[in-house]
C-alpha cells in the first residue's frame, strides 16, 4: 500500500486578477521508503503541492478544491480538522524549507527549538529532550553538538542551519519527509553533503521522501521516481532512469536540453523558448503548446490527458498527444532524439 496517495489535487488561489489555478489536478503515489522527485520551473506549482499535502496553504486566499484527495496511511487529509492535521504535522509528516537562513527563529538557541518539537510531540522532559536533541545534531553531522546545542542560529553557517532544520524535521520520526528545494540556497559542496545526509537519514528510517526541486541533477542523484510538473499539472512521470533515458514529453526534453553537457554537440545551451504562462490564464488546450516545437491543431483543440507510455506496467506517463500520434515526433528542429541514455552528473 502506498504511504501517500494524492488524487486530482487542485489548489486554487483567489487573486485580484482572477482565480490562479496553481495546482490543477495532480495525482501520484509514494510508497514507504521511496523517494519521489518533483521537478519544474518556478511557478509550476511544486511548492503549492507540498504545502497542500501538509495542509499549510494559507486560506484565504488559497483553497483546496473539492474533489481533491490527499491520503496519508489511508487517512484523508483534505477536509480534516485543523487540530487533527496539526497532530499529524511533525509526527507523521515533516517538511524542510528552502531558505535555511530564515527557517530558524533568531531569538532562540538551536537546542531550544529542537527541544520544543521533542517536548511537544514526544512528551520528553527538558533533560531527555537535550539528550535526544544532541544525539540528533550528531546524526545530522554537526560537529561539537553539545556546544552547538546552546548556540543561536546566527552563529551557524547556512549548511549547518539546514542540518539543524533536518534534525528538527527528523526529531519525531516522520514517515513522510517533504523537502522543498532543500539545497537551492546552499553552495555546491554543501549541497552534495546535505543530499547525502537526507539519503542516509531516509534509508536508516525507512522514511518516504518527496523532494521538490528545479535542479535535475539533484533528482538524478537522489530520487527513485520523478514527476515533471508544468503549469500546475504533471506532464511526465516515470522512474528517474526512464525519464532521463528517454524523455517523452517535449517539455521534459526541453529541460534536459537546457542542461550543460547534455545537448549533444551543441556549443550553446538550448533554452526553452517563451515563458511559463500566468496561473490565472492557462492557455486552452495543451498548456505547453505555445512553447512546444511539435504543436499542431490538435494541441489547441483539446488538452491532452496523462497518457500511459509503454503499457500500464511501466508506470510511465506523458501528457502529450504525441503518444497517440508518434509519427509527428519527427522534430521540426534538430533535437538529440535517441541519443544514448546519459544521466547528467552532478557537479562534485
Amino acid at each position, binding site marked *: 500500500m502506498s504511504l501517500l496517495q494524492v488524487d486530482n489535487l487542485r489548489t486554487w488561489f483567489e487573486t485580484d486578477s482572477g482565480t490562479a489555478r496553481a495546482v490543477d489536478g495532480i495525482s501520484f503515489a509514494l510508497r514507504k521508503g521511496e523517494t519521489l522527485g518533483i521537478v519544474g520551473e518556478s511557478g509550476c506549482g511544486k511548492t503549492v503541492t507540498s504545502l497542500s499535502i501538509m495542509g499549510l496553504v494559507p486560506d484565504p486566499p488559497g483553497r483546496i478544491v473539492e474533489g481533491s484527495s490527499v491520503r496519508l496511511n489511508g487517512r484523508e487529509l483534505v477536509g480534516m480538522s485543523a487540530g487533527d492535521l496539526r497532530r499529524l*504535522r511533525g509526527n507523521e509528516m515533516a*517538511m524542510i524549507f528552502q531558505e535555511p537562513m530564515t527557517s530558524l527563529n*533568531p*531569538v532562540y538557541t538551536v537546542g531550544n527549538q529542537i527541544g520544543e518539537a521533542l517536548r511537544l510531540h514526544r512528551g520528553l522532559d527538558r533533560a531527555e529532550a537535550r539528550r535526544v536533541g544532541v544525539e540528533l545534531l550528531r546524526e545530522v553531522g554537526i560537529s561539537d553538538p553539545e556546544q552547538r546545542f546552546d548556540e543561536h542560529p546566527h552563529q551557524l553557517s547556512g549548511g549547518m542551519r539546514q542540518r539543524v532544520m533536518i534534525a*528538527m524535521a527528523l526529531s519525531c520520526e516522520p514517515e513522510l519527509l517533504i523537502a522543498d528545494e532543500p539545497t537551492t540556497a546552499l553552495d555546491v559542496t554543501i549541497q552534495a553533503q546535505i543530499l547525502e545526509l537526507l539519503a542516509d537519514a531516509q534509508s536508516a528510517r525507512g522514511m518516504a521522501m518527496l523532494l521538490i526541486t528545479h535542479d535535475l541533477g539533484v533528482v538524478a542523484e537522489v530520487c527513485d521516481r520523478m514527476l515533471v510538473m508544468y503549469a500546475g499539472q504533471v506532464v511526465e512521470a516515470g522512474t528517474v532512469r526512464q525519464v532521463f533515458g528517454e524523455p517523452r514529453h517535449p517539455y521534459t526534453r526541453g529541460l534536459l536540453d537546457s542542461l550543460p553537457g547534455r545537448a549533444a554537440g551543441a556549443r550553446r545551451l538550448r533554452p526553452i523558448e517563451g515563458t511559463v504562462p500566468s496561473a490565472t490564464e492557462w492557455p486552452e488546450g495543451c498548456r505547453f503548446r505555445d512553447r512546444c516545437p511539435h504543436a499542431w491543431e490538435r494541441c489547441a483543440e483539446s488538452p491532452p490527458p496523462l497518457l500511459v507510455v509503454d503499457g500500464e506496467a511501466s508506470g510511465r506517463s506523458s501528457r502529450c498527444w504525441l503518444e497517440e500520434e508518434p509519427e509527428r515526433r519527427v522534430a521540426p528542429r534538430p533535437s538529440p532524439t535517441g541519443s544514448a541514455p546519459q544521466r547528467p552528473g552532478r557537479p562534485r
Partner: protein
Amino acid sequence: MSEVWTEARSDARSRASRRVRFRGGPALGIVLPGLPQLLAGRLAAGGYVTALWVGLVTLLMYRWERVWAAPTGALDEQIAFATLALGIAGALAWSIRDLRKGRDPLPMSRSQWGLASRAFRKNRVAVLAVGMVAFFYLVALLTPFIAPFDPTFQGDLLADRLSGPSATHLLGTDHFARDIFSRLLYGARISLSIGFVAVSISITIGTLLGAVSGYLGGAVDSVIMRGVDMVISFPRLVLLITIIALFEPSITLIVVILGLTQWPQVTRIVRGEVLSLREREFVQAGAALGFSRVRIVLRHVIPNILAPVIVAASLGIGDTIVLEAGLSFLGLGVQPPTPSWGTMVADGRNNLLGAWWISTFPGLAIVFVVLSFNLAGDGLRDALDPRLRS
C-alpha cells in the same frame, strides 16, 4: 592623526583597566563600588554605580531611624527599604563581578540584542537619558526615606505660607504651607506609576491584538483594525474628559482609561511587523512541525517584535505622563490632596508672579522626565533598528 590618538587612548584605557584589576582593584571596589571602573576610564558605568552607591549610603546614614523602622511600616516604606537594600547590595555585587570578569575577554555577543546594546551605548545622550529615567524611578521608590515632610502636612499658615526656597523647605511652600519638595517626590510616584501601569496595559493589549490580527489575517484582522480605526478617530482628550466626567475621578480610573485608549497605535505597529514576520520561514516551519497557532504567536512571533514594542513603550510613557499632567491640571485627574505634578502646576497658577516656585518645579520635573523618556526611546529606536545603525 585622530585615529592614532583614539587608538592610543583606548590602548591606555585597557592598560589602565588591567592595572586596576591587578593592584588591589577588588579591595577598592568594595570600599567604593564603581571607583575602579571610573579610574579605568569607564565613565558611564563607573559613574552610575559610584553615584548610586554614594547616594544610597548617604540616604541610609541621614535617615537611619526611618530606614530602621521601615520593615515594619507601611507598604511603601517596605518597598523603599527593599529598594535601598537591593541597590546597595547590587552596586557592590556588580562592581566585584565586573572586576573579576575583567574587561579584556571581549568576544562581544553578536546576537541581535548584543549588537543593539553596543549601538545604544555609543549614543551618549540616550545612555544619559536612561540613567535619568532610572534615577527618577529610584527616587520615586525611595520617597518615604527622602521626603522631609508628609505631602499633605500643612505648616503654619501665617508664617510658612508661600515662602520661597530655603533650608527647611528646599523648593519653598505652596498656598497651604505644604512643602513643595516633598510633594514633588510623592507626585513623582503618582506620575511615574500612572505612566508605567497605563503603558503596560496598552502595550499588552496592543501587542496581543496586533499579533493576532497580523498573524490570522482575514476577518479577524478586519474586525480588529476597524476597532483600531474607531478608537483612533475619537479625539483622545475629549474621550478621556467624557469618560472621567461620567465616573468619580480616581487614580485607578485614570490609569485604566489611559491604558485603554492608547493601544491602537501599538496594535498598528505590531500588526505591521507581524505581517512581514509571517512570511519568514521559521513561522511556516513552526506550523510544519505541528505547533499550534497560539504557540506560534506567543512563542515565535511576539519575541521577534519586541524591539519596536519597547520603543513604543518608552515613548508612550512620556506621552502618558504629559496627558495625565494635563488631566490633573484641568482638575479631572488625580484629586487633591493627593499630590500630582499636574495638580501642583495648577495650584501655582494664581500666584505665578508672586510665588513662581509652586508651578515651576513640578513643571520642570515633567519636562525632564518626559524628555528623558523620549531621548531614551529615540536612542532605543536607533539602536534596535538595523537600518538606522551606522
